[in-house]
């Protein structure tokens, strides 16, 4: 009996507040927008019995999904989100790997402190970390002032409100997610393997490519997914740092819902985003499972 309660409470909570809402999103994505409360039709009328359910199902269609393919705003936003997420993941890897490598090679007694320094930004508000770049990248911002003072440029650069600022924002906020799994993989690595490779005539660089990189492969994969998946649906970064021409699907969904008040289209946008995310999520899950099995 006690066991049933233990299972039932979290189970029912997640069913009611996680699964059921998705079914509702799916249903509304098949509805039509209407000027009413709630702003869509049809609504399910259970009092009409089977006939009501049949009428309800008959009124659902894929019109909104057809609309998504016709208006080029949407597919451009999906493609541009995919591109931005992919490119910024690659940049985060390039920035994060040397840091993780340096941490793993640092003297043992420094490592807890370095670890703490990587984790600290993660506990600090995401919103504030994104916001901090607004003052740096703006036309009169710290970076432009610095570059003007150095004499590298003679007119301020336009960085804020461009895609460049979005890339900087994503790399900055997700960097800890890249560093930690790679560091964990490198930390576990047996250093004698590299010494062996060097003894056998490898140069330092070759030993790095042939030994270190393959051994940290799982950390690299985990880090890339941890950056790519949330970056794809990102809203805060493109809306604060990006410009009006920055197209990202999270922002489109937000505007469709709050500005246009078109709930069915917003729901359809969400369903398609979820379908796109299924692939990387499944691949990530598989990578994690393989890693866990390898550790056993």
């Amino acid at each position, binding site marked *: 009996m*006690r066991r049933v309660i233990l*299972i039932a*409470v*979290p*189970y029912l*909570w*997640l069913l009611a*507040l*996680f*699964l059921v*809402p*998705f079914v*509702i999103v799916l249903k*509304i994505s098949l509805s039509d927008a209407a000027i009413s409360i*709630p702003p869509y039709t049809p609504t399910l009328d259970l009092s009409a019995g089977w006939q009501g359910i049949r009428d309800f199902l008959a009124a659902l269609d894929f019109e909104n999904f057809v609309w998504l393919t016709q208006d080029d705003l949407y597919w451009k936003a999906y493609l541009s989100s995919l591109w931005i997420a992919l490119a910024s993941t690659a940049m985060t890897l390039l920035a994060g790997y*040397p*840091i993780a*490598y*340096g941490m793993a*090679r640092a*003297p043992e007694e420094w490592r*807890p402190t370095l670890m*703490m*320094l*990587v*984790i*600290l*930004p993660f*506990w*600090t*508000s*995401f919103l*504030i970390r994104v*916001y*901090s770049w*607004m*003052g*740096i990248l*703006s036309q009169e911002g*710290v970076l432009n*002032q610095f570059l003007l003072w150095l004499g590298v440029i003679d007119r301020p650069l336009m960085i804020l409100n461009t895609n460049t600022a979005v890339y900087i924002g994503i790399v*900055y906020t997700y*960097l*800890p997610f890249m560093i930690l799994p790679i560091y964990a993989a490198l930390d576990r690595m047996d250093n004698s393997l590299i010494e062996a490779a060097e003894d056998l005539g490898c140069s330092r660089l070759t030993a790095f490519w042939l030994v270190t990189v393959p051994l940290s492969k799982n950390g690299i994969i985990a880090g890339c997914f941890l950056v790519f998946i*949330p970056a*794809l*649906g*990102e809203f*805060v970064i493109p*809306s*604060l740092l990006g410009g009006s021409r920055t197209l990202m699907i*999270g922002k489109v*969904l*937000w505007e469709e819902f709050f500005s246009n008040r078109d709930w069915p289209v917003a*729901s359809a946008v*969400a369903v398609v*985003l*979820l379908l796109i*995310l299924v692939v990387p*999520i499944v691949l990530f899950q598989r990578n994690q499972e393989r890693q866990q099995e390898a550790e056993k």
Partner: protein
Amino acid sequence: MNRLSWFNTVSLTLGFAFLYIPMIILVVYSFNASKLVTVWAGFSTRWYGELLRDRAFLNAAWVTLKVAVASSTLATVLGTMAAYVMVRGGRFRGRTLFSGMIYAPLVMPEVITGLSLLLLFIGIGLDRGVLTIVLAHTTFSMCYVSVVVSSRLATFDLSLEEAALDLGCSRAEAFRLVTLPIIAPAVISGWLLAFTLSLDDLVIASFTSGPSATTLPIKIFSAVRLGVSPEINALSTIMIAIVTVGVIAASLISKRNLVRQRRDELAAVRG
């Protein structure tokens, strides 16, 4: 192997400079006397004063704190239960669905979670306010708690619990007297994680809050949309200071516990 090569020194220096310089600049400019954020006009704590006199901000801070305490506490209870079910529950019907529902919210884009919860609340006619934000935050943060707690439970030595049962404890007593004290650090870090996630969340709160409940992130977001604001710089500095003190304290405490544990072990060996 004990000295850093120049390459590692450079990459660590640049890396940590990149991570910290933006926050340091934010903190420095929060003490700027000028309203123009980019012009340095001398040291002043003026913006802190204005911030503390701003009732809207104080109200938002209070709402945020209430939501964070309520949702993280609920999430810790539910998440610990879920973790226990996942690790010790054995087989039951719908287990795959259950573990899917635990892991899915971790990777779900916030805009989708927010939208779907809002549509649910409207569907059942629940007025949007503090309650709906608490429900929303509890739902996604309980999954984080359950991941943290279940990783501790998985490495837990089962024989300890079995010994308690052999010695006449009931299952509930064994959990309260043996299991809970051992997994307590994980439960506490789960609570802290849930608390921070709730404090931090903008997107889900924006979807699920009504006009009666504005949280701090919503307030900050609407203020900085128009550009940099000195009051927000002051607020950010306060938040960064709290987190920094918290993280350093937590790491000192865990270090001290580790040292004490080692000393006890050493004493036991010498015994």
